[in-house]
């Protein structure tokens, strides 16, 4: 434990010294992951498929704000989808514009949830997003997370039906359109996952705000259990098949990641909790004060006292 705390302090001081550089590096990795995942899962437009394009775009992204990176990713995704089917590209574009106008008009600045959610789904750790959203954000994060889930299922649909969509030249455009929209709207796995995410964020957020000991750990564990339970209920009610082994492994990994986040953001020592009580004219205050865990960075310096050469010289 001590080792991790020291590591945390070292990371903190590193970030303090190289903040601009670290921010750029994080953005670069974030954008590169997004572009590469899109290439790997969609990759229909051959011009974008070469590894140079994502690399250049990611390098440029290192200097852009998160909103602009999301915009670039969206364009990249639409280009890939457009190669397969104009109809789906249109539906996706309309969906993105609606989300951008209605939600991001209010709350610019948390577009990364919209990107991170499909990423987590592609990495098979979907449960981590509601956990982090509940721990880090407010209840409103439910909206971008849900939209991210919809995006993931659109991607999934394109990936699975790519051959069908490109070869179906005989079917006219309106029929294709009907097909696409029906498939997206009646996707029950998507609905179940949205419900799961909403339940997860709610539970995590509400428990985190409680003033009980170990609230954050409790929130992470209960949030995961609730999400797993919701998946199984959805599985039972709507007959959505889910691979259980993968699900449990993903849940385990999600708990681990949320635990790491918890360690870095909210390290407190509940064993040294202090209670105090006082009053003023209008209220009585019951205060619970929990100290943060703090270690000072070990500062090892070797100073030689008996330097023989120097000593002799001094004697002369």
């Amino acid at each position, binding site marked *: 434990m001590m080792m991790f705390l020291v590591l945390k302090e070292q990371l903190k001081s590193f970030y303090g010294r190289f903040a601009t550089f670290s921010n750029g590096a994080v953005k670069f990795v974030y954008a590169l992951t997004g572009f590469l995942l899109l290439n790997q899962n969609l990759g229909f437009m051959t011009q974008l498929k070469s590894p140079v394009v994502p690399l250049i775009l990611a390098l440029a992204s290192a200097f852009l704000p998160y909103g602009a990176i999301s915009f670039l990713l969206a364009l990249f995704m639409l280009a890939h989808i457009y190669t397969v089917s104009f109809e789906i590209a*249109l539906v996706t574009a309309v969906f993105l*514009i*609606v989300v951008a*106008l209605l939600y991001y*008009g209010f709350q610019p600045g948390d577009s990364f949830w919209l990107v991170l959610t499909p990423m987590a789904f592609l990495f098979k750790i979907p449960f981590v997003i509601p956990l982090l959203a509940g721990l880090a954000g407010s209840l409103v994060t439910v909206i971008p997370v849900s939209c991210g889930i919809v995006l993931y299922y659109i991607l999934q649909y394109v990936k699975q039906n790519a051959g069908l969509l490109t070869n179906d030249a005989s079917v006219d455009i309106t029929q294709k359109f009907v097909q696409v929209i029906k498939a997206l709207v009646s996707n029950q796995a998507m609905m179940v996952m949205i419900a799961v995410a909403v339940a997860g964020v709610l539970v995590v957020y509400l428990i985190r705000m409680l003033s009980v000991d170990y609230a954050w750990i409790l929130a992470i564990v209960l949030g995961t259990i609730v999400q797993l339970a919701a998946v199984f209920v959805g599985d039972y009610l709507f007959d959505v098949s889910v691979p259980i082994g993968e699900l449990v492994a993903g849940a385990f990994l999600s708990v681990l990641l949320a635990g790491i986040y918890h360690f870095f953001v909210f390290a407190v020592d509940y064993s040294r909790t202090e209670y105090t009580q006082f009053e003023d004219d209008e209220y009585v205050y019951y205060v619970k004060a929990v100290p943060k865990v703090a270690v000072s960075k070990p500062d090892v310096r070797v100073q030689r006292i008996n330097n023989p050469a120097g000593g002799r010289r001094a004697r002369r």
Partner: protein
Amino acid sequence: MLNEDKMKLMTGIAMFEKKEGKSIFPANRYFRSDYISSRMLRSFFSYTCCYILCVMVWILYSMERLLNAMNLDEIILAAKMAGIGYVAGLVLYLMITFFVYRRRYEYARRGMKVYVAKLKRLEKRYEFQSRTKELTKEGGRYDDVSRA
């Protein structure tokens, strides 16, 4: 000469500006009603845009049905439903906008009070400093008085 006290104050103010400026400065240029109504106007346009887009998608979706069953009554009914849906959604969205921006305006006003208080403290610091300079000037005090 460096004045540590003043530097701390100014750094604090600059930090405050950087953190809270985004939410405070757009709000404090307007009266509350103007601020909220301008936001609501913006919401109205973005909502209308979204609605038009969605209706277009819906028309494309049900193009075949519309063309096959060219029934005027049905089309009128659909248009009515669309109108009702538009108005209901608009009212809901504008209400959300109203509540959100009203809260943000209050928040910004409180932030502005803090900001002004900080600036006043800085100003006092300046006054104090210039006054001390004046008083400690070589022979300044009595000369000033005699001149006056």
